[in-house]
């Protein structure tokens, strides 16, 4: 077969998922913190909007992104950045929720004490809230990363299936099944199973280690 080697597909999948997660992390951390700590007008609406990509059909999310990047004239459709954009959109709710929960579990008392010690809002966030929520935030990030590894619907629309450029494991499985090449599809399935397993083990291990 002339297809991209399994290793390259796996590497691309990891790269897309990692970049998406890293891009998302700062935004999700700040938004999660705001949602956990502040009450503001329209909070319910924000929460609903944040959750939306999780409940919409991924294909619809993909189409929305494709239309948006076309309108904005961003040249990322059919590139691996398109796959990143799709993963960002689909994983956003997961990570924001994860961060919100992580911060909600931090006793606000610690932040109040930090404030009483003279730390302003930013320093109190960086030196107290964030380190205390670290475990939950990273767990959320690992979950989002794992979700990104398997993202298909939105990615197929935004990034297309271009071997060696945008073909992630999920897309590769799909295109091989489409071509009736079940053997090759199965090989990719095993790779993505292994990847997901390792990521989930890492997440659970991290959770346990942090708790000890």
């Amino acid at each position, binding site marked *: 077969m002339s297809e991209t080697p399994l290793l390259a597909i796996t590497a691309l999948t990891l790269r897309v998922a990692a970049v998406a997660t890293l891009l998302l992390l700062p935004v999700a951390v700040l938004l999660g913190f705001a949602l956990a700590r502040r009450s503001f007008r329209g909070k319910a609406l924000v929460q609903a909007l944040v959750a939306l990509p999780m409940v919409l059909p991924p294909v619809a999310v993909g189409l929305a992104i494709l239309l948006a990047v076309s309108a904005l004239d961003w040249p990322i459709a059919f590139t691996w950045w398109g796959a990143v954009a799709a993963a960002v959109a689909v994983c956003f709710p997961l990570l924001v929720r994860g961060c919100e929960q992580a911060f909600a579990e931090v006793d606000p008392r610690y932040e109040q004490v930090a404030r009483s*010690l003279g*730390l302003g809002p930013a320093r109190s966030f960086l030196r107290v809230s964030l380190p205390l929520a670290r475990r939950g935030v990273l767990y959320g990030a690992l979950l989002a990363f794992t979700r990104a590894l398997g993202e298909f619907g939105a990615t197929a629309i935004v990034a297309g299936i271009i071997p060696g450029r945008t073909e992630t494991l999920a897309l590769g499985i799909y295109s091989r099944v489409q071509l009736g090449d079940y053997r090759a599809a199965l090989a990719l399935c095993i790779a993505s199973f292994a990847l997901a397993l390792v990521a989930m083990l890492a997440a659970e291990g991290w959770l346990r280690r942090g708790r000890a």
Partner: protein
Amino acid sequence: MSAGATRIRARLRRSGFTLDVDVGWSERVAVLFGPSGAGKTLFLETVLGLHRDAEAHVELAGELLEDPGRGVRVPVHERRLGWVPQESALFPHLRVEGNLRLGLARAGGDGAQLRRAVEVLELGGLLQRSVRELSGGERQRVALARALASDPRALLLDEPLASLDLPLRARVLPFLLRVRDELGLPMLVITHDPDEAIVLGEIAIVLDKGSVVATGAPREVLWSRAVLPLSEALGLENVIEARATAARDGGAEVETARGLRLVVRGSLAPGERVRLGVRAEDLLLAVGEPGRLSARNVLPARVARLETRGGDVLVHLDAGEALVARVTEGAARDLGLEAGAPVHVVVKAQAIRRLA
């Protein structure tokens, strides 16, 4: 540092509870006293500025921190108030030293405040410890040092000893007294323990159900008519300051400045100063010379006055030191107690607790 006047007004509504306090004092060390649920913590947090929905006017030791009328509301992190919350709230992700250094965020500079706090609270050996490994008493000392390291203009302590058992309290209280006496900071200390109120405070503010019911010198105000209804929740106490004179009967003999002698349990070095507490209900009264008793302390005294509360009578006594005993109305009647009557006060050595 001389303390300026303090004036605090706070109105704050919580579900089923309203805090409505308007109080002022000029003493340096005030204790906020009252049963649990009186609103003490809410009051302290309002002074800190944690409750944005509170209607508050805060002028602490001469510094104006909050006055809606003049549009003043100093943010929490600029109030310079050293706060030790009830549960101490040490940062679990930092070692002891990290906790103390976070206190330097404001003090900055050479950390002189920090070194002084470490020295006064004897924390030198604990700096590299994880806060999870600390005992209850150590936690409170670290929390206190952290507050001190931040170079506060005043200390706000919320039940600093409440989470400790009695022996531990006796070990931590001296540190609290050192902080009070050596650092000279204005302090506002919450307690529901009369011992602590009397030992620590120059003035007591008694809070119940969200309002101030009395203010005044702790010794007087705690026995005052207004506070009596709270006595059940509080457990009235006699607090005696004395100096050890000699070992005796496996215990020690102490003598107060006015010559009252008592036998207490435990060993004391001669000359050592102690604060002792005896519950009012642990004092027995006898009319006439009592016979042979197992109790080690039998003190001649005179009834100063009687006070009736509920089914009980509080008997204020002069035994060299002022004492208060609590007896039933029937007992007071049978003994024919009245002002000026001579009695003997009987106290078991075991009933005398060492406070500090």
